[in-house]
Structures are given as C-alpha cells and as structure tokens.
C-alpha cells in the first residue's frame, strides 16, 4: 500500500484516496469548436508514461480535496504532491 502525502493533511495510507487519472488535462474552453482529433485526444488519449507521471488524486476519506502528484511509475515512488492549480514541478530526481 502506498503512503501518499496529501498537501492539506500530510501522509496517509492509500486506502483513504481515490485515483483521478492523468493530471493537467484541461477541459476545452469551447468544445463545439474543437476538431474531432482534439476531442478524441481530450477524451481518450493518455500519456501512460513509464517514468514520471503527473496524476490526480483525491483524498476521499480525508479532506475530500483533489490534488496532483508526480510519481515514478517504474518504482511507484512519489516525487512530489502539489495543490490543484499549481504547475507541474520541474525535474525531480527519481
């Protein structure tokens, strides 16, 4: 089980959290003007990287807030967790 540091509450066991998929995918401002390719990309295409992954988590059984994390998918180690709306941290030696 992962130990996840909620930016609001601190380290808590994975069971308190739900996973929200890839982070920083903004809903298009004007969906009706989007090309079918861009719409497909928004809905379905994911980075699925082997390495650093920016992803959303929700501290469901805690403060219930969404936040983002940078995690290495080859080790499952968290490099950083940060509040929603903040930019993806650069670097992070993982």
């Amino acid at each position, binding site marked *: *089980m*992962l130990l996840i540091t909620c930016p609001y509450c601190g380290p808590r066991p*994975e*069971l308190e*959290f*739900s*996973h929200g*998929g890839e982070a920083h995918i903004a809903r298009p401002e004007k969906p009706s003007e989007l090309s*079918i*390719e861009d719409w*497909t*990309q928004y*809905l*379905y*295409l*994911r*980075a*699925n*990287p*082997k390495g650093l*992954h920016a*992803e959303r988590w929700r501290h469901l059984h805690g403060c219930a807030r969404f936040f983002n994390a940078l*995690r290495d*998918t*080859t*080790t*499952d180690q968290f490099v950083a967790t940060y509040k929603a709306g903040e930019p993806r941290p650069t670097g992070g030696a993982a």
Partner: protein
Amino acid sequence: MQKFSALELFRQGLSGQSGWRPQWRNPEPKAAYDAVIIGGGGHGLGAAYYLAKQHGLRNIAVLEKGWLGGGNTGRNTTIIRSNYLFDESAALYDHALKLWEGLSQDLNYNVMFSQRGVLMLAHTVHDVQVFKRHVHANRANGVDNEWLSAEEAKAFCPPLNIQPNMRYPVLGGALQRRGGTARHDAVAWGYARAADALGVDIIENCEVTAIRRNAAGAVEAVETTRGVIKTPKIGVSAAGHTSVVLGMAGVRLPLESYPLQALVSEPIKPVFPCVVMSNTIHAYISQSDKGELVIGAGTDVYTSYTQRGGLHINQHTLEAICELFPMFRRMRMLRNWGGIVDVTPDRSPIIAKTSVPGLYVNCGWGTGGFKATPGAAHTLAWTIAKDEPHPINAPFTIERFRDGFLIDEAAAAAVAH
C-alpha cells in the same frame, strides 16, 4: 521438429529419455526480416506462427526483451470463456475459443486446454439482470451460456457457499460450459516450437528501443539491444508496454497500464471442479492440475509498470474467496505476483493498423486477453499479411474512439476497474 507422440515417448524411454532436442533454436538476429513481431507472449508468438503457416511469411522474427511468456502470458489465471455481450466481442472471443478447441492437435503440443466450465456468480438483482441479458445475447450469437439458480450453481460447484446470510449471497450464476482453463506456459512454448519449425527466428533478451521510419513515414527498422534490424512490417504485441513501444513511432493510444495481481495456494488434492468468478466481490478461482488454487484479484487504482501492486488488493479478494468457499479459510497462500495490463476506455482490445504505414498493433486486452490468445494471434497475423483487418477484428480499430463506435464490455470484462 521432433514430433511428440505416445510412440515417441516410448522410443525415447528405451534410450533413457536422452534423445530429446531443444524445442526451438536460439538464433542470432539477422540484419533484416520481412516482418518483425515485438513481444514474445502468447499473442506475439501465435501471430508469428499464423503468419508463417497461413500466410507463407517465413523470414520473420519475434523479439522478446525478457524470456518467452515472462509477461502476462505467464502471470495470468488462465480463464478462458467467450460469453461477452456485444456481437463484435462474441465473434472475436468465440473465434478464439474455437481455435482453443483444436490447438493442442494443431500445434502437436499439449496446452492442457480443459473445458471444465466457467461459472460467473450473481450477488445482486442488478447482477441477475445483467447476466440474464448476457445469456440471451450470447445464445442469439450462437455462444453457449446458461442461467443457473443458486442451488444449480452449488450442484455444479459443491464447495460453493449459498447460505442466504452471506454478506453478498449467491443469487445464481451464468455458466459457460465450453469455458475453462489452459496451461499458460505451454501456450507460449507450443506456439514458439511450431513457429520455429516453420523457420521463424525467436529471439529472447532482445529489447526494442526505437522504431525507425523512412522519409514517407513508413517503418523501416527497429533498434534493439542486439543491434539494428531492418523490416518493412512491425506487429506490436507488448501488452502493458504497448504505449511505450508505439511511442517510439510517435503513435498515442487510448491505453493505461495497471498492475493486476494473482496468487496461488499450497497444492492440495483435487477439490474444485470448475472455474468460478465473481465480478461484484472481485474474485476468481480455479484449481491447477498441480493442485494449487489459482486466485485472481482486481487491478490497483493507479497506473504502474512495477509488476507489483498493493497487498490490500489481494486481501480484499481472499476475504471474498473465504466467504464464498468457507472450506478454504485455513489454507496458506504460496506466492503472489503482478502483471501490467493495458486497459482501454471501453475494455475492448485494439487489433488494427496504425497511422504509421507498416506498423500494426494488438493491445488493450487488459485483464482478459489470455482467453483470446489464438484469436488475437490469428487476426493480427491476417492484418499484417494483408495490410487490412480480418472481418472479425475489423471493428477493433483505434479510430472507433474518434468515431464513437465503442464496444463497451465493462460489464463483461469481469474485473471492476
């Protein structure tokens, strides 16, 4: 190829079993092939076999970064069935099931295919309605599937607990009698041996690290840890690593890779006659011919390439198993492991051409592609050889996501994600 038969076994017995030869060669990679398959699991090895056998492509290779069947092929719980809901899926999975029925003979290799029946349990009114719908849809498609009451389910699988005071009581189940299990390693080895006999080079410890494309954008070569190999056609069957491999050619896919875990118990005498699965409480179980209970858990919630996953996922599954089969409560588990499964948004696979000429992909089998091994391999080979899909895999494109033709099998895919 040294043919296996009772007579041959007897003959070898006379010389103390000393005359057996390796089942496939261990060749050095050539500088160029007519086609290259990336991934030496059952799907990739099978595709090479059908390419050689049915399409006459003999100058081909399978490149595997580790050892044959060391991916999900060798890590899965080997459940085989074809009772999926939609017409497209029923056709694809039943195509595979029909190939399974003749596979040991076709390959001259005992893949230990055992049609012991797969029973899917219903625990809620919703389950009952969904499974009955499946039964009807399957029958309309010529796929066997029947509804059993709780008492009939217990008669079919005596260890099953159908007491009404269970937390999730068994209300009945859908039984596919043609379903069952097969020996996972034997599937990889059987295809490898048969493909090798047709001239296919099977190259282990050979990781593809880049895909080269020519000025027109078509594939031209792969770079590997054992050198550059030229080829005009590449078939990718890399399961959890598909996003990584297709990324080498700049292709993005609607895939996410998750850990999926399984575990086996200490071996015991035969006690469990069939396969039982429960989607609702996340457990599936059968007994291997060695006597171990083979138990599958759900996926972890996060994407990962670690082939591990959390222990609480297994615990959750074992709680369900202990409630369904109280006689297993004191059994000890021998080992557990994880594989990385590539999951699509509609839980259906992709077997298709890509936007890159000469690049073909078979992926998205997620938690349930072992059952499809012969069918996936056969249709991938067809697609590579003819540069167009077989009618059976034609609906399973990448473009279906763009065009809104999803084949949503979330209810049939068995493990809740």
